[in-house]
């Protein structure tokens, strides 16, 4: 297991290098740079040239990549053109918010999708099952900007139940538990928006996985032992049916960050997704690179975590 882990972590290094090259190329291929969008007729064009020189934007892309890579490896993510602040400070200010949003959305996903999937699988092809299928299709196909706007319209604008922006009440002065509650109150709508697609997908997945497990011979064996349907469900069916969810968990850990870009922007929720969106609009490539790299690393770590979890819960899987 240890050698397996070391090998897996080592193979991440070339993967990250490759990802960084592709990302950097894509950023460079986009027309313009951080200063072309700020054009102001009152400012002399030579000023921009000076700034480009100062930030190294006039060097060749290859040179720029190596300068970026050298700094990045040393933990120096560069200076944001827009904020005139180190990117690492910008990220560390916001990453907590994004992680909070991500965790809440994961909890929401699992606590809703698994029971809904079980309901569906208990009575397949029933009215309840078809209703849930219908909602899942809608939820799965609705883009998050639309879902976010609809939720804001309904719950913030019409019903005035939930706030539509921020992470906490401005000037609320909450501390401890009440601060946590206030933050939860603010995170509910964005977290629900973010998890809508995973709730929809997971509950379908749980449903079919349970239906498949119910057909297995060992379920019949368990029933033949005299165990009741609910015990068989809990002890034999669910254990087997929920194992494949781990794969989805590993993949979606990274996707949470990606999905957060739109969601955080709509809810003006100050996380790194929103930072990323600003970064793209302003061609602020140190931000784009840093957040993309974090996102890529999360995907890789998520997959590694999924593989480790597999070995923990499924006795058939052992890594040499």
């Amino acid at each position, binding site marked *: 297991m240890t050698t397996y882990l070391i090998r897996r972590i080592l193979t991440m290094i070339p993967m990250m290098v490759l990802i960084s090259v592709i990302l950097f190329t894509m950023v460079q291929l986009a027309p313009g740079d951080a200063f072309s969008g700020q054009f102001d007729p009152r400012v002399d064009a030579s000023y921009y040239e000076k700034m480009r020189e100062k930030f190294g934007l006039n060097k060749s892309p290859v040179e720029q990549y190596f300068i970026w890579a050298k700094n990045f490896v040393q933990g120096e993510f560069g200076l944001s053109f827009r904020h005139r602040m180190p990117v690492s400070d910008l990220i560390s200010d916001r990453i907590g918010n994004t992680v909070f949003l991500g965790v809440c959305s994961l909890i929401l996903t699992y606590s809703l999708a698994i029971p809904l999937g079980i309901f569906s699988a208990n009575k397949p092809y029933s009215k309840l099952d078809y209703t849930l299928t219908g909602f899942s299709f809608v939820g799965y196909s609705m883009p998050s900007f639309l879902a976010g706007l609809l939720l804001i319209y309904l719950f913030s604008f019409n019903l005035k139940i939930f706030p539509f922006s921020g992470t906490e009440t401005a000037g609320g002065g909450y501390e401890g538990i009440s601060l946590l509650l206030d933050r939860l109150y603010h995170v509910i709508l964005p977290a629900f928006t973010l998890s809508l697609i995973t709730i929809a997908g997971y509950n379908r997945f749980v449903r079919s996985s349970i239906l498949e497990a119910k057909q297995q011979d060992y379920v019949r*064996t368990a029933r*033949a032992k005299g*165990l009741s349907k609910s015990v068989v469900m809990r002890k*034999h069916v669910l254990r087997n049916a929920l194992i494949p969810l781990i794969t989805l968990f590993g993949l979606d850990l990274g996707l949470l960050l990606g999905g957060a870009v739109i969601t955080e922007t709509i809810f003006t929720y100050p996380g790194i997704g929103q930072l990323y969106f600003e970064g793209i609009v302003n061609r602020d490539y140190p931000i784009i690179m840093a957040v993309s790299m974090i996102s890529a690393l999360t995907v890789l770590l998520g997959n590694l975590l999924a593989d480790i979890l597999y070995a923990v819960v499924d006795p*058939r899987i052992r890594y040499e």
Partner: protein
Amino acid sequence: MSQELLQIHNLKTYFFSDSGKIPAVDGITLSVKRRETVALVGESGCGKSITSLSIMGLLPESGKIVDGEIIFNGENLVKKTDAEMERLRGNEISMIFQEPMTSLNPVLTIGEQIMEGIILHRKVSKQEARERAVQMLKLVGFPRAEEILSEYPHQLSGGMRQRVMIAMAMATNPKLLIADEPTTALDVTIQAQILELMREVKEKFETSILLITHDLGVVAEMADRVIVMYAGKVVEEAGVEELFEKPSHPYTEGLMKSVPSLEESQQRLYSIRGNVPSPDELPKGCRFAPRCDKAWDRCFASEPDLKEIAPGHAVRCFLYQSEEGNEPR
């Protein structure tokens, strides 16, 4: 205490689908005495597995017992509620299945799977259940029983898993063991070991066995009495020696002839022509008639009854039922 442990009277188990009802088991009557091994023989799809699932009360949702009774130890199982059946299953009636590779839960240890039945029915502590599990595993031939308890099914071979299944089924000392093709998925040497084990276990626990199989070799080895099923009906019933000496129904004869023999050198192995009719398009008259070499007009017109032709030997065939002017051709 009556001598009969299990009596099935006119059991009809039908499956219902959008396209209509399918009579998988169509009025069978059979009995199993205490300490007796009865073999239920027939081709795939003749209803023998559905019979066993009917006894267990584990029919798929589309299947339903529409008529008949299953008297086990004096009580009609057809009338029992789910909860009552749960108390019986795995306790008084146990079952082992054809596929030992998939019949055990891959993510639970052997110990957990044996112990859960013991704890459920015997209401004992985990420690006592554990001791019982070890005892059972030793009995079915695992010298290192304690270690096996914490192993997972994938660590065992097919034969070992079937031993575990037997240990699991017998742990509560059931009165009836239903074995649905217990050796079909195993290779021949392992088959012999498992059959031997089943015989030993039967002696030790004084259990009756309802053995479902299509393998006449297994029948000869294990059974006291044989019931031959065809297309949801019993076509012949006899003691094992009588049946092998005087197979009377043309179908039974066909089955006997299809077994490869070591003594005679045959050019080509005999096979009964045609296929088992699908239960939703059964022929009129005798269900075997379209495949029968001895069939005549009457066989296609009406269905024969099961008639006793010698003590303990019953056949469902017109060949043994004389009627004026209708001699076999």
